């Protein structure tokens, strides 16, 4: 158990370090970092100040070390946005994105697991085929097209929901649905196959001999075995949801980090972009850490080893 925790924390550290190293390398390779980290019209003295402060006139290993220390202390450079610290500008937009992704995740996992369970219990019959076709469907549809179709239906034709903006519960509905349903297909496929695997286990055959109601049988015997692998999927689909957020936030003008990232890329606001990349990597690393720990906690096979 202690070993599993230590390994999980080491992984967290390494992935964040990898992301920081990646940003450092492309920052160095792409041109003058001092200019990149400041707004275009920054005066020459300020550029010199940054160069000295970030040790950009020193040998590379020292630059790298200073860079890591700078980021660790929360200094990511200045955004072109009113020349505010990049971290602060990004931080203001985090709550909206977390709300959107959280709702999306809940939709993905509830809808996906329900459909996956239904598909597995009707294996090979019409409901199964329908659900699996739907899963391929939502996997192939570009999220921006999905978003635009929803806007056409609910905002333009029916006039029920606002086409974009926010953040408010009404504004949240459509973007969260796009993010959630796009991932629900993957979840459904996954739950279906893990449930079928569990159903083939000998202990299920034994449990099936007991005179239990079907729902109780699934809840008490099938679900615990097929739910654990979902933890792995959680870390995996978080990446998909973060990437999806960048596109979906842009479609629905949701005032979050994803839309801000796209906006900053178009303006080449390097300070903001590096902040977001490092934050995303840190967040994903934490999600993986939690997955590892929950696995160690719940799965007796991992817990005792």
């Amino acid at each position, binding site marked *: 158990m202690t070993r599993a925790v230590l390994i999980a924390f080491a992984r967290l550290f390494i992935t964040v370090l990898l992301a920081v190293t990646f940003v450092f390398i*492309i920052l160095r390779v792409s041109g003058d970092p001092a200019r990149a980290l400041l707004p275009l019209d920054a005066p020459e003295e300020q550029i010199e100040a940054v160069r000295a402060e970030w040790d950009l006139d020193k040998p590379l290993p020292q630059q790298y070390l200073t860079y890591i220390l700078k980021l660790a202390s929360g200094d990511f450079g200045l955004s072109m946005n009113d020349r505010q610290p990049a971290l602060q500008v990004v931080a203001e937009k985090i709550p909206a994105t977390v709300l959107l992704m959280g709702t999306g995740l809940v939709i993905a996992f509830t809808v996906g697991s329900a459909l996956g369970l239904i598909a597995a219990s009707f294996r*090979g019959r019409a409901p199964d085929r329908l659900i699996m076709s739907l899963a*391929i469907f939502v996997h192939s549809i*570009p999220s*921006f*097209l999905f978003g*635009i179709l929803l806007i056409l239906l609910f905002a333009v034709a029916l006039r029920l929901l606002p086409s974009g903006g926010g953040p408010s519960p009404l504004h949240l509905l459509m973007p969260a649905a796009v993010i959630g349903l796009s991932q629900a297909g993957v979840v459904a496929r996954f739950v279906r196959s893990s449930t079928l695997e569990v159903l083939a286990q000998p202990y299920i055959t034994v449990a099936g001999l007991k005179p239990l109601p079907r729902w109780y049988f699934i809840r008490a015997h099938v679900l615990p075995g097929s739910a654990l692998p979902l933890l792995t999927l959680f870390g995996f689909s978080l990446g998909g949801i973060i990437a999806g957020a960048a596109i979906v936030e842009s479609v629905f003008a949701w005032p979050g980090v994803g839309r801000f990232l796209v906006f900053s*890329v178009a303006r080449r606001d390097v300070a903001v972009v590096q902040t977001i990349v490092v934050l*995303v990597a840190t967040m994903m690393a934490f999600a993986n850490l939690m997955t590892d720990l929950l696995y160690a906690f719940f799965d007796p096979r991992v817990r005792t080893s």
Partner: protein
Amino acid sequence: MTDLMAANPSRPARPRKRREIAVGIAVSVVILFVLVAIFAEQLAPYGFATIDLRARNAPPALFGGSFTHILGTDELGRDILSRLMISVRVSLIVSVLACLIAATIGVTLGLAAAFLKGWVDSLIRVAIDFNASVPFLIFALAILAFFGNNIVLFVVLLGTYGWERYARLVRALALVEYEKGYVLALRRLGASELSIAVKHVLPNVAAIIIVNMTIALPEIILLESGLSFLGVGIQPPLASLGNMVGLGRDYIVTSWWIATIPGIAIFALTLSISTIGDWLRDVTDPSLK
């Protein structure tokens, strides 16, 4: 029924016919797209950038428009069908090139890892760790922010998507091949390691690489169109399916067809290729599933 379906326990034998029909339709759609991409100039009724301000925002023929512009026109009066044809060409060329680059990188490293082991192995593991830490779209956006946008960089960037999948797959397959008698025999005959890898091992794993490419291609098309949609991929005046949707997005309330038609084209293309890819995978090797 036959061995094809019997080899795959998760699917019953009965809907085999249904699946063959679906695959048949998918293949026809892909052929149609490829023909359109090849003969775009000959087929297009107008120039893809020809502006006709008198015919702005004309709806498609079946939605109140005329047959002079079957799929309607955009906000500058450019014919949507003609733009769509050029866009299919651009999107397909970009995505297929990217797919080939990824396969080349992955196969080379995978083969190298199989008989060099050591640092190549470590490199692949680091890359997989990094891939797990930052979603590719975010990675791509970061690169485009730092280096600015040009089409060569964009294609190469997309070409780094998914290479580690080929690398892992080829490494595992090649390790199995190296244990086989024919490799041993070739070594005794004095063949060099490089020629064994390229001339003998590679052809034996080629089928699986191709299946993997068919599965990766739709993902690359979605990435390309997603980035172009966001305005950081293919840039105007060049048209791609994604940037057509992106540029049409501002007009969806008044002229829905400008964004929706290219969007549906992307969907039809990715869905068809996915269908073919899934089928190929099941037919060639059910254990890969």
